């Protein structure tokens, strides 16, 4: 396989996910393959609407794929059903972008964090309480102070801590973080990113870290996958990808990051427009309508992911390296 993970915990093969809206098909995820090694953080980045959340949900079997496989620890989740799927799912958790909206406003924090335990059939209330206290302390909240309170009494950053605690309470191996810091301010964002790194080390997690901000993704990821309009453009080790992007879209994303240095004058960006509709994606390379290097071949032939440097793959007919 092309992504060189020696011991993949999660393996996505040729995943296709579509939505049907008003008789039209939205090509949300088209033929995506990925591997995530045990203990690794893979960052997934791309503009909003490119299919990141859909991919995450399809991995968790919260959205059925049209075709393709999702192999978790060797088991194809797309074919598992009933109790065996539930068992497997317990090992995989999800953290959402909007921490406040993802907490039930009428339930107390202690109950919210304990909920996965209840669903998983942990009957002993003492055992549940012990686990809840442990994860709340781990995310930096005082269990005795917060357990009895309601979500609205907490700030966005604290709610995200609570969501992280809830996602950890079943001792998962794999956590999908879907834009966990996009709604947070710079200073709180840094706290939560640091917390995720601590939790990863403490609980031995493997992470799929989704964001639309490349700088944030780079801060926490070993490797980065860049997605555009449902397809993967480029995958590679974070630093390498930043230093030498191969795909013109990756280069565009890097160039667009605002640099907090007045001596770095923002280059008047090429008028690259906006992504086209996923209902009728462009033929050939989906990025071609915004790509400065596009030619006739790009319109007729879908570029395959190919190796461009050790561990780095790009889907482009005319890569930058």
């Amino acid at each position, binding site marked *: 396989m092309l992504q060189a993970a020696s011991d993949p915990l999660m393996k996505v093969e040729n995943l296709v996910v579509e939505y049907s809206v008003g008789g039209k098909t939205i090509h949300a995820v088209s033929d995506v393959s990925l591997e995530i090694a045990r203990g690794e*953080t893979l960052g997934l980045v791309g*503009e*909003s609407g490119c299919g990141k959340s859909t991919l995450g949900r399809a991995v968790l079997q919260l959205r059925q794929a049209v075709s393709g496989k999702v192999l978790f620890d060797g088991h194809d989740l797309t074919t598992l059903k009933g109790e065996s799927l539930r068992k497997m799912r317990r090992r995989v958790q999800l953290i959402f972008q909007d921490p406040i909206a993802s907490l039930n406003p009428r339930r107390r924090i202690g109950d919210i964090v304990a909920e996965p335990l209840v669903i998983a059939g942990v009957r002993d209330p003492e055992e549940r309480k012990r686990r809840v206290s442990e994860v709340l302390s781990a995310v930096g909240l005082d269990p005795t102070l917060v357990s009895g309170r309601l979500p609205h009494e907490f*700030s966005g*950053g604290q709610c995200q801590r609570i969501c992280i605690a809830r996602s950890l309470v079943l001792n998962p191996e794999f956590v999908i973080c879907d834009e966990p810091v996009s709604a947070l*301010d*710079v*200073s*709180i*964002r*840094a*706290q939560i*990113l*640091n917390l995720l*790194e601590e939790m990863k080390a403490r609980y031995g997690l493997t992470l799929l870290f989704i964001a*639309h*901000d*490349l*700088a*944030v993704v*780079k*801060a*926490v*990821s*070993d490797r980065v996958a860049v997605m555009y309009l449902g397809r993967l453009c480029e995958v590679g080790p*974070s*630093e390498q990808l*930043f230093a030498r992007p191969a795909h013109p879209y990756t280069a*565009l*994303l*890097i*160039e*667009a*990051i*605002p*640099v*907090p*240095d*007045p*001596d*770095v*004058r*923002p280059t*008047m*960006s090429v*008028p*690259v*427009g*906006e992504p086209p509709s996923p209902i009728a994606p462009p033929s050939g390379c989906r990025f071609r309508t915004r790509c400065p290097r596009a030619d006739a071949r790009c319109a007729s032939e879908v570029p395959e992911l190919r190796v461009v440097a050790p561990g780095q793959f790009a889907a482009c007919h005319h890569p930058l390296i």
Partner: protein
Amino acid sequence: MNGALLSVEDAVVDLPTPRGNLRAVDHVDLAVGAGRTLGIVGESGCGKTMLSRAILQLLPRKAKLSGRVIFDGQDLTTLSAEKLRKLRGRSLAVVFQDPMTSLNPVLTIGTQLIETIQEHLELDLAQARQRSVELLTAVGIPAPEQRLTQYPHQLSGGMRQRVAIAVALSCEPKLLIADEPTTALDVTIQAQILDLLAREQQRRHMAMIIITHDLGVVAGRTDEVAVMYAGRVVERAPTPALFKQMRMPYTEALLAALPKLDVPPHTPLPAISGRPPDPTRPLKGCSFSPRCRYSAGRCSTEKPRLSPAETLEHLYACFHPIAAGSGA
């Protein structure tokens, strides 16, 4: 400041809330010269929007404003509603984070642009229409003539923001206030919108206030930056001077907390611990003191005043500023 297009003098905005009085803007002084760009930076809740609404005289009804807002020689706090309405369309314009704040969902883009233009400029329908097409072209909207018949919901978020900018620019304002115009947008769209604003500003020799929570956004695109914390301006300087030497610990911490592109992954970020104070429970001392690593002595009992240091243009509010020459 003499000769400024806009000067805000000792502005205070108080909001009554069930928890008591909330001071959203706390004794703010600012000035913007004609054709200049001021960046206002701070985390959410620090009072950026209330300050911009105070300038525009668009505060919530229950809000209480004191201080003066001098724009183009007039104190806006003393103008009638009618005069203000004229001024806002004509020489003082605004773009909000959510473009739907300034767009009407039930009117076509053409109707909104043409109406705004005709309300403030003496143009007939054909001329106003022509001008609308020019404006949509200027803000980078493809097929502008077709867009005139479309409704805002038929456009993407980025396109809607371009339309909102076109509406704001339609009467050649002297000052444009852009309140987090790109916060809801993707980085690639953000870069295009910021370029667009910069280009139109230069072309029209318009003054601009860009409000953002991202120091990266203001670094290359403003002449001066004001950093806000808990309702106050805590540091203000010409942009190059500020980035060369940050004196107020909060500014420095805000910059440090940004993910850097040139450090390896998994490097812990220098986060600012804790969070801003509850604005209904103002602190006696420096509002940043519970989070400040330099806090000592009178920091917790006395409020530092915004005052100049080595140069008259670089102001900061801190008892123990970061030593000159030790910074970035």
